[in-house]
């Protein structure tokens, strides 16, 4: 292990620009070099390098024993990751699309998430479950969900959602070193894949050295006085774009990237809401019983007197449809965010 990790707050000018996928892989490779107990398993993670380039180059450096292609048996290999973690190793297991959680939910929910608690703390499960999330490329209802709320809802797992290369690397170092199970949800649209163009935001400067980003620290991406916009993942970039548009009209939006859902940085949200009095929460998950409701509830509990208006944008409780016109309708866009902020500002 690296003796001491620096807690960077920002990339410096000397850093290289990396895609989110490169940054994520760099952290994994670093940890694998430092710690023999770290290994990676999943479908198509060896020769293919991960369908979404989550493991590019790892096979060449570490070989098949540590970068393992596994059968299409998610229950078996995710459960095996739990067992290996309980035996003291630090497995990283990839669920190719988060939508496939259904076939292995028992291992995730009843073993990975609960064994620490149910053993009265006598076991820990220091594993990382990496998984690709999100839509916007017309892959329909079984391949486009984020399911942020589903995972954050179940106690016992830490849930991480990077939106930039810088965060992807620091959060991955933290995830692998954490003694608890961490669900690391990377958005396909942000990975910088040649075949699925990313917006410009996620590609950032990334330090060569290792560094950790502590869980539970939201990032204020853009300070503003008028309206608070709380979001995560892809929608951080949509919100930033909307904030630029709004700025031209003299509306000053503050954009907060949650970065981790469990633990959740309630304080940063409350501080912002106390200042602006207006809260918009934007999420790419289903609307009901999810992230938007949770953030609004915490704002109401902690800063009710300061709140004058609240709104949320999310997938309106329909499965994600295939056709472009339909998916565009249900996935909140930049214009939807700008319009919602305007409404709140009135």
């Amino acid at each position: 292990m690296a003796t001491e990790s620096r807690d960077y707050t920002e990339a410096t000018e000397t850093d290289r620009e990396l895609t989110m996928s490169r940054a994520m892989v760099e952290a994994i490779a670093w940890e694998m070099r430092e710690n023999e107990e770290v290994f990676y398993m999943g479908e198509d993670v060896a020769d293919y390098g991960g369908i979404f380039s989550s493991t590019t180059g790892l096979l060449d450096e570490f070989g098949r024993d540590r970068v393992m292609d596994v059968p299409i048996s998610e229950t078996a290999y995710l459960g095996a990751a739990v067992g290996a973690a309980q035996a003291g190793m630090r497995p990283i297991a990839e669920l190719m699309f988060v939508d496939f959680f259904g076939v292995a939910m028992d291992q995730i929910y009843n073993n990975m998430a609960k064994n620490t608690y149910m053993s009265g703390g006598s076991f820990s499960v220091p594993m990382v479950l990496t998984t690709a999330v999100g839509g916007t490329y017309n892959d329909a209802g079984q391949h486009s969900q984020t399911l942020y709320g589903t995972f954050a809802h179940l106690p016992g797992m830490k849930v991480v959602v990077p939106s930039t290369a810088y965060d992807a690397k620091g959060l991955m170092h933290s995830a692998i070193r954490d003694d608890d199970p961490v669900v690391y949800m990377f958005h396909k649209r942000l990975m910088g894949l040649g075949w699925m163009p990313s917006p410009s935001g996620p590609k950032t400067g990334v330090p060569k050295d290792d560094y950790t980003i502590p869980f539970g620290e939201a990032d204020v991406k853009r300070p503003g006085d008028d309206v608070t916009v709380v979001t995560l993942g892809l929608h951080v970039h949509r919100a930033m774009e909307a904030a630029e548009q709004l700025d031209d009209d003299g509306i000053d939006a503050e954009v907060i990237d949650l970065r981790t859902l469990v633990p959740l940085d309630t304080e940063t949200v409350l501080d912002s809401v106390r200042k602006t009095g207006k809260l918009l929460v934007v999420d790419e998950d289903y609307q009901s019983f999810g992230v938007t409701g949770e953030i609004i509830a915490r704002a109401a509990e902690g800063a009710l007197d300061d709140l004058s208006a609240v709104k949320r944008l999310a997938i309106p409780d329909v499965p994600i449809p295939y056709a472009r016109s339909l998916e565009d309708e249900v996935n909140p866009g930049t214009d939807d965010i700008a319009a919602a902020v305007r409404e709140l500002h009135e």
Partner: protein
Amino acid sequence: MVSVTDLQTMYEQMVTARHYEERLVDEYLVGKQPAFDISAGPIPGELHLAAGHEASGAGVCMHLRDDDTVTAPHRPHHIAIAKGVDLKRMTAEIFGRKTGLCRGKGGHMHLFDPDVNFACSGIIAQGCPPAVGAAMAAKKRNTDSVAVAFLGEGAIDQGGFLESLNLAAVHDLPVVFVVEDNDWAISMPKDRVTDVQNGAQRAAGFDLPGVRIDSDDATAVYEAAGEAVMRARDGNGPTLIEVQVHRRMGHFMGDAEAYRPEADIDRAKQRDSIERLAEDLRSHGVTDDELDEIRERAHERVEEAISWAKEQPEPDPEEAYENVFTNPPAQAATDGGSAADASGDADETGGDN
């Protein structure tokens, strides 16, 4: 024995399916060149083409009626064509159009056609349990319908498949499992993920018959499937069949197949089940002119379906809120959800985002 007419019908299904996939390559690449962008062009999203799998769909579905159920995986076109799914509406669905089989909600991995009892799942092996359910319904209702679940060899390690084998066996259900072994599960060769030589061996552990067909010979598939379907129809329970097929294209469009040895790609292309069947037909006295005629008819049908699909309207955005429920609740859970009136029709006012 398979009749020459049946061989000709299979040949027509197979050339239709092959030409369909080849034409979809062209259509899919529109708007995606020179830089490949999965979300661009008239057919966005993933596209898994089945060139090289045709013998399995055709040989099995020859024995099926409209009231028999078929479930297919993420690579479904050749099976859908052989099962008699409406080609025009299927194509419109792939183009994401309003008049598509699923009104643009499903796309190519999720084709549903109740007229011929055809359904898909994009989740590996998860078409198996619903096929068992269709067989269960047939048995309870004393019909002689059967169900067939198609899956890839990569799916034989999945619980959904193994549990289905057991459930079907213990209740003697009229279901046939058809594994299409194309040697690859995306980039993973079969021997990296399982120690059995062939998927049909899985049957023994559940005490049901397992049949392996070592080549993608449509006639051999026809014969094995005929026995299995008859066994199911007669109330004698399930059968597992594995057919060796070949993946002539990448796993999905855009897959450069860097992981796959050149020789394997060449081998897959050389073993052409369609050419083999053409040879068989010639040996039965069918002339080249007759074969040409079949091919032309198939090509025309495909062209017609594609042009029809491309003329179809796109869904209106408000349609996104319809069909969540068959009986939509009067008060939807969210502002954006569909509210329904008393007659149960979906409200088209749509959401606020």
